[in-house]
């Protein structure tokens, strides 16, 4: 009998997804809360399962579906992130009466896609994981059926996402044609054996890499392929924006690692410059355009683009240090993003969800604690010590200086300073403007406070997260 332990988490998710789907069909409308708790219980159980069997799972060595430490740790991170996101989303969706169990189930499909991505060892499974994630994202963006904005955002994202998938596949087909294999390790070996650094001989790989990187740029939301990010953030419901801005970023980062680090590290000279260009354009566009935004979600969208630029800088250097910094940056960005969108999901403005920055004016007068939480996240996003955002940027700039990229380091510092302006503007609105709207809280939540205070805690003691990032990346650089 085959040993199924290596794929057990995926089996558990699929089974419970099917069972909850069937149970939900037979539940009365007022009992739908049961399926929500069942989903949360499944996720918790899965985390427990992974931690319990950590040693046993990571020692397994399966050829097509890796369960090394890297993938198991990332799976645990994704699961715990999703539990918190579901908790935030549930209250919001219930309050605005748009809750359906399908929303969470479709998110679970996305989670399954991300888990498959972390374990993928060949291009076929990687592609299927990416598609599972993308399809579930298309659907939850269009979930708010009554809003024209939402369906517009969905169709834009759909068309661009499908083009990106096409480009990815085109790149994969070229790689397949050039190397004759779709396994990541064999692709690596083939490129390593051919051993040529000459651009003319490698023009096939450069072509394939261009297509793949353009497509990943689309999926990541790096400029100049960022067009969908502001629209989708603006058009979809707040929980959807919360989900989009957090976990898929980790997933795309993992795809970058899998492809660039695991398969194409031999072609480092060719992809480094491409990524660097994307990174610099993203930082400029993100930071400059964010200044003129009045809509809070759009502003955060451009801030996302700028942050993605920073992550890409880390990727483009291609050393162990820089990848560690990029991992650290990704994880801390995801925590920050979950914090800010989490806070926003609990606030209603005249009975509606938060849209404009000016909606929050004078938040401090009636809800000083919420105002303080937003202050913390904004300071962290702006990169002000002693919060985690500061360490993320500092770490990256240190790596740049160590690799003697002084000009880029200077550029990153200047852009961070420019970026601080629009974050501080939010703080000004919250603390110094007059109250103009009736702000209510859906419920006051402990978890969102913990999530936000985590920024401060990790800012004061960043070493755990740094060590985790080092640990995760060490597997790729051991040889």
């Amino acid at each position, binding site marked *: 009998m085959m040993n199924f332990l290596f794929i057990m988490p995926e089996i558990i998710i699929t089974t419970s997804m099917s069972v909850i789907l069937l149970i939900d069909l037979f539940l009365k409308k007022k009992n739908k809360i049961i399926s929500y708790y069942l989903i949360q219980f499944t996720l918790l159980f899965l985390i427990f399962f992974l931690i319990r069997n950590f040693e046993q799972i990571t020692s397994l060595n399966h050829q097509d579906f890796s369960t090394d430490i890297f993938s198991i740790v990332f799976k645990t991170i994704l699961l715990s992130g999703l539990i918190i996101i579901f908790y935030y989303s549930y209250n919001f969706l219930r309050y605005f009466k748009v809750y359906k169990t399908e929303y969470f189930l479709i998110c679970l499909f996305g989670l399954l896609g991300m888990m498959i991505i972390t374990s993928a060892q060949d291009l076929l499974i990687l592609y299927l994981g990416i*598609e599972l994630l993308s399809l579930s994202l298309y659907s939850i963006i269009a979930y708010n059926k009554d809003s024209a904005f939402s369906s517009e955002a969905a169709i834009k994202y759909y068309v661009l996402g499908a083009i990106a998938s096409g480009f990815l596949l085109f790149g994969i087909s070229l790689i397949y044609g050039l190397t004759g294999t779709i396994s990541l390790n064999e692709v690596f070996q083939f490129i390593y054996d051919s051993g040529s650094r000459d651009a003319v001989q490698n023009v096939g790989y450069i072509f394939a890499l261009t297509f793949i990187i353009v497509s990943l740029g689309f999926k990541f939301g790096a400029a100049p392929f960022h067009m969908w990010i502001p629209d989708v953030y603006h058009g979809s419901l707040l929980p959807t924006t919360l989900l989009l801005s957090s976990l898929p970023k980790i997933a795309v980062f993992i795809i970058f690692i899998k492809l660039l680090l695991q398969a194409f590290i031999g072609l480092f000279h060719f992809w480094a410059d491409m990524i660097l260009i994307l990174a610099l354009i993203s930082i400029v566009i993100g930071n400059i355009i964010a200044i003129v935004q009045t809509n809070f979600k759009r502003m955060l969208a451009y801030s996302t683009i700028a942050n993605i630029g920073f992550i890409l800088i880390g990727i483009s250097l291609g050393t162990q240090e820089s990848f560690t910094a990029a991992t650290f940056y990704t994880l801390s960005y995801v925590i920050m993003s979950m914090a800010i969108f989490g806070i926003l999901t609990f606030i209603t403005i005249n009975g509606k969800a938060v849209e404009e920055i000016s909606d929050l004016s004078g938040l401090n007068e009636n809800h000083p604690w919420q105002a303080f939480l937003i202050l913390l996240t904004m300071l962290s996003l702006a990169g002000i010590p002693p919060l985690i955002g500061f360490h993320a940027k500092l770490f990256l700039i240190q790596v740049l200086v160590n690799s003697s990229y002084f000009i880029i380091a200077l550029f990153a510092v200047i852009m961070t300073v420019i970026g601080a302006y629009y974050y501080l503007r939010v703080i000004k609105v919250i603390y110094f403007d007059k109250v103009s709207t009736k702000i209510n809280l859906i419920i006051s939540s402990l978890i969102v406070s913990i999530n936000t205070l985590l920024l401060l805690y990790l800012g004061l003691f960043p070493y755990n997260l740094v060590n985790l990032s080092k640990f995760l990346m060490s597997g790729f650089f051991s040889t």
Partner: protein
Amino acid sequence: MSTELLIFIFFSLLLVFSALKVIIVNNSVKAAIFLVLSFFCSAVLWLLMNAEFLSIILILVYVGAVMVLFLFVVMMLDINLSNIKEKFVNYLPLGLFIFLVIALLLILFFDNQFSDVDRNIVTEINILNDNNTMNLGYLLFTEYIIAFEIAGIILLLGIISSITLTQQKNNDNKYQAPHDQINVTKSDRLKIIKDEEFRK
């Protein structure tokens, strides 16, 4: 000129023609029909490249199901054709430019990189015999089982999300409910009021 080459040239020209027609016709129904034609031509060309099973699947699934879905949606949306005809010419130069650039780039690239057919890449797979479907099936159910199950999950996601998205909340169709009609009892319809009560 061999028969194979003749077939290739005929169907590839037809394929390019119908693909061009897909992107330049105004009417979505016509575009769908031309897409069917291009799928058909591709199926023939795939047959030439020893992909028998896939060429049948292409016709079965794409011509048989996906294009039907497209046509249903076209019919469902009832688009007013008169006001979508304009604005086409404005984008034609751009389209032509993109087409020429990319086509030239790709053709040059492919011609350079893949002109030599045998490039000493040895691939070993378990080939049972020269039956394409059997080989494909054997490979699918030995090496790619995980991918196969993931495909099933993707299909499930397709079902769930398309139903969630398209189903309307209130179904306001009026129809008879024979079951309820038969089970009506006297007490449901008749209320007997006693004479004394009525007088009060």
